[in-house]
């Protein structure tokens, strides 16, 4: 494969004196010593959105899981809000794909959102009114305040995903990591999620989101990072989401359309 067309421009930060929400330098990520993603160089400033795109197995989830502590940082460094891993763990909120969670687990939507408050509550203190109010407010921001007492598994896939976003909102983290939260999600839920993310970035929260939807990436992201085993390109969406870059990164999975756009075919 050809070399990446760009090495990852670093966007200007909103406040130069504040540390970046996420800074990744010369990093390789993997599991148990085996590197599955390398040469990653990214900086996400406060209030910015980074979209991770790439084919299945490209390393998008691995990168996100490395920041949470579920996968390994093999080489390089990662800092979250100025603190390096592994000490930085706990500073970001993670939103998994709803379909990866057990729908039979006996918790209500409000219970799930309250999990976002657990670290603030601590080990001993009982859950207080302020925490419950924060959870309900977060559910309201994704349009599900009336489903607070419904069992998580009885909600639709899109609603479950919104509950998980509400959990991240309730955590009040300055960095959100979302692992393909829009996969298989209905249009209403997608708009609710994107709207909530927009509100969060407006208040300075940084967002890292992996997605297969390049149109969404182009719409919401300040920068897009194309991955496939390594970082192929990173930068503003219009600089990165070009047919040339996508063909290089996606290989045979990229198909050129007559109108000049590139369609990605998952295999």
């Amino acid at each position, binding site marked *: 494969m050809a070399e990446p067309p760009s090495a990852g421009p670093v966007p200007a930060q909103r406040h130069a004196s504040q540390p970046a929400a996420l800074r990744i330098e010369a990093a390789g990520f993997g599991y148990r010593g085996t590197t599955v993603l390398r040469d990653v160089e990214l900086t996400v400033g406060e209030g910015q959105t980074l979209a991770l795109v790439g084919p299945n197995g490209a390393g998008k989830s691995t990168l996100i899981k490395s920041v949470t*502590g579920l996968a390994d940082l093999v080489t390089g460094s990662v800092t979250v809000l100025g603190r390096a891993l592994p000490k930085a763990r706990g500073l970001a909120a993670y939103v998994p794909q709803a379909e990866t969670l057990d729908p039979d687990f006996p918790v209500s939507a409000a219970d799930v959102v309250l999990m976002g408050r657990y670290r603030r509550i601590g080990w001993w203190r009982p859950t207080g009114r302020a925490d419950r109010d924060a959870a309900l407010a977060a559910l309201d921001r994704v349009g599900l305040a009336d489903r607070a007492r419904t069992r998580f598994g009885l909600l639709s896939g899109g609603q479950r995903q919104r509950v998980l976003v509400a959990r991240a909102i309730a955590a009040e983290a300055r960095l959100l990591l979302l692992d393909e939260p829009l996969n298989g999600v209905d249009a209403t839920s997608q708009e609710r999620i994107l709207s909530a993310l927009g509100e969060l970035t407006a208040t300075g929260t940084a967002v890292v989101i992996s997605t297969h939807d390049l149109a969404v990436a182009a719409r919401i992201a300040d920068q897009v990072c194309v991955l496939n085993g390594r970082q192929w390109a990173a930068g503003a969406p219009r600089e990165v989401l070009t047919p040339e870059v996508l063909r290089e990164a996606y290989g045979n999975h990229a198909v050129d359309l007559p109108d000049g756009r590139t369609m990605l075919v998952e295999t």
Partner: protein
Amino acid sequence: MLEAPFMLRALAELTLLALICGPVSVFVFARRLSFVADALTHTVFPGVVAGFLVSGADGVFGGALVAGLVTAVVLTLLTRGGLLSDDAATAVVLTALFSVGVALVSRRSSYTSDLTAFLFGRLLTVTPGQLVETAVLAVLTLTLVAIGARAWVFRAFDVGGAAAAGYRIARLDLALNLVVALVVVAAVRAVGTILVVALLIVPAAAARMLTDRLIAMAAAGTVLTLLCGYAGLWLSWTASVDHGVRLTSATAVVLALVLAYVLLLPVGLLRRRRPA
């Protein structure tokens, strides 16, 4: 039945066990640790036998405690390091240590009666001293549950979310395995190494038929264990005294628990079919 002091002590022991098995079984259920719990009951067995061989009946508690804590650590390390899959690691440790226990007990001349006691417990011979030991373990277990409950629920529901929130997953897993081991140690003399697993699995499984909430499951599991404990003691007493049928108390208690689970199954199915 309760005029007999030994029956009162048995009921007190079962009450203490109900108080810890109700909540802990919820975490075993939520983390799908039934097989690990089963393994711990078996791996405690050589400790029970070794303790008995060294110090007689008084050594059983210490032997079980050491074996339970050691195997909780070993199981956590084996499954965490990825050396083996969860199931394979658990099965290897289970069978290996259970074999050691059988080998140890087979050296005794009273092999059959000792083995029966270790496997199926001696609920009716619980002493006041044993009650105190169980009470201490119950207080310790419930304290650990109160501290760890939220983190264990988060980890059971979404390990990635819990890790991102800053919880150390390996430490949480080790702590829960240790708590399960403590429950096994608390219960093993009364109900035996084979039947103790029922107290760690059935209360939550039965309570799940009644409720969708974890706290309610813990409460319902505790009440069910208590009721079934009393019912089992009554059944054992009636069978033995009134009808001359020998039925060990621990077996009767476990049978009552399983019966409760079977009777609640249709309730759970009906609740699931009901629209949200």
